[in-house]
């Protein structure tokens, strides 16, 4: 299928149109606003729906199939986070805090992006493996934990170096270091008990228990209304992205390029690896999207506490203002096309088996 054609038809879906509409509403300074309670409710609803679907489908596929993709996803996420850090620190010349914060923002997953991906596949009449919802839940804290751990290491190393050079006390810095260190377990606890993961895991378990039979009574809310709910949420996302459009200038050319190139690279690798692992057409797209997406709802909450020195204006603006629109408008159709080619053209898969061998 022609990629451009797919992008074009993707542009005209309600999800994207409402997102663009939200941006316009913000640009003309309209007072249009989704009530706060609703915009807080919608992510919970979306995650519950994703979890239920995942749980039901996991009953059909079983747990054994899930293990390898999950471990590979965790491995890739960690690898990508380190890779991001090197690129940002070496090439982008960002300071250590911004580099780690951005690296983990892009290593983490975006639940909203994931929802849009699911509804994109639904629109194309393609299904995906249910256990990807479980991977979403597991992957969520991974990149943050790594980044926070490495930041703590770097900070205590700096303090040690400082201590050695001054020998006399510089207590304020030492305090900062101690404070940062105790935070890791706290961050771990917070991100695992955070509402996103709790609702997602809870719904997966409930979905697994109730199966299709029990689901039929709530299907109207959690299945048929799913895309409609995303549309409403997209208005809100559009408005927030629109309000930040001016900030993009402050983000700089390097980070703007990073926010587009990195997800493309990660996403395509994700699709290739998933295909090599034997995931379906839709599953490979979702797997790629997991790795391509950047977190912009969970990230600020975690990073502001764990790496307060990093500027939130950088990581929120680039993730929400650049990467999110790019992912749902352009990258999603690209990954879908690649995945379709891989799954229909048999000859090419061997090549990617070769690629995956190098990875493992």
């Amino acid at each position, binding site marked *: 299928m022609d990629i451009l054609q797919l992008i074009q038809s993707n542009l005209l879906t309600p999800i994207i149109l409402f997102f663009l509409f939200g941006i316009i509403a913000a640009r003309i300074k309209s007072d249009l606003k989704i009530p706060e309670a609703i915009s807080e409710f919608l992510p919970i609803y979306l995650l519950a729906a994703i979890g239920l679907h995942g749980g039901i489908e996991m009953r059909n596929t079983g747990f054994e199939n899930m293990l390898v993709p999950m471990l590979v996803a965790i491995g890739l996420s960690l690898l990508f986070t380190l890779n991001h850090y090197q690129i940002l620190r070496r090439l982008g010349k960002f300071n250590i805090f911004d580099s780690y914060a951005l690296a983990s923002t892009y290593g983490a997953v975006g639940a909203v992006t994931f929802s849009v991906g699911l509804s994109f596949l639904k629109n194309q009449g393609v299904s995906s493996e249910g256990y990807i919802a479980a991977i979403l839940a597991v992957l969520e804290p991974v990149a943050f934990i790594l980044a926070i751990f490495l930041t703590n290491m770097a900070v205590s190393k700096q303090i040690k170096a400082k201590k050695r050079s001054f020998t006399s006390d510089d207590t304020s810095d030492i*305090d900062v270091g101690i404070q940062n260190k105790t935070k890791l377990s706290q961050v771990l606890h917070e991100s695992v008990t955070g509402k996103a993961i709790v609702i997602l895991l809870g719904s997966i378990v409930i979905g697994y228990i109730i199966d299709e039979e029990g689901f039929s009574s709530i299907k109207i809310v959690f299945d048929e209304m799913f895309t409609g709910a995303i549309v409403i949420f997209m208005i809100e996302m559009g408005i927030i992205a629109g309000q930040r459009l001016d900030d993009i200038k402050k983000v700089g050319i390097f980070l703007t390029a990073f926010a587009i190139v990195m997800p493309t690279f990660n996403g395509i690798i994700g699709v290739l690896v998933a295909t090599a692992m034997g995931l379906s057409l839709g599953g490979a797209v979702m797997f790629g999207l997991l790795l391509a997406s950047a977190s912009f709802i969970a990230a600020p909450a975690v990073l502001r506490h764990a790496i307060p020195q990093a500027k939130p204006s950088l990581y929120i603006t680039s993730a929400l203002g650049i990467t999110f629109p790019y992912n749902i408008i352009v990258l999603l159709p690209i990954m879908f096309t690649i995945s379709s080619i891989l799954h229909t053209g048999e000859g090419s898969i061997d090549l990617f088996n070769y690629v995956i061998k190098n990875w493992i």
Partner: protein
Amino acid sequence: MKLYNVKLLTITCEILAQKNIIEILKNHEITGYTTYEVDGNGARGLRGQGFKNEKNVKVEVIMREEKLSDVIEEISRTLFANFAIVLYVSDVGVVRTEKF
């Protein structure tokens, strides 16, 4: 009626700093405080729009003067550099001084 002089510490900060502040208060054995969500404009631009995580919050704490400077010192040392935060102190009178 006799009013006793105590201090009111008011902190306006980003909502994600609220936890740190309450932690600091706890370290100084202060358990009573009032918070409310606010929005406004400041050095870090218009705040209170967009995500819930980017809202501002106002924390009010009544305390005796003895504890005040330690609390303020710790807040300034740990939070001023990285968070959107403003704090000020005023004199207030309370009836039941034993509460603070």
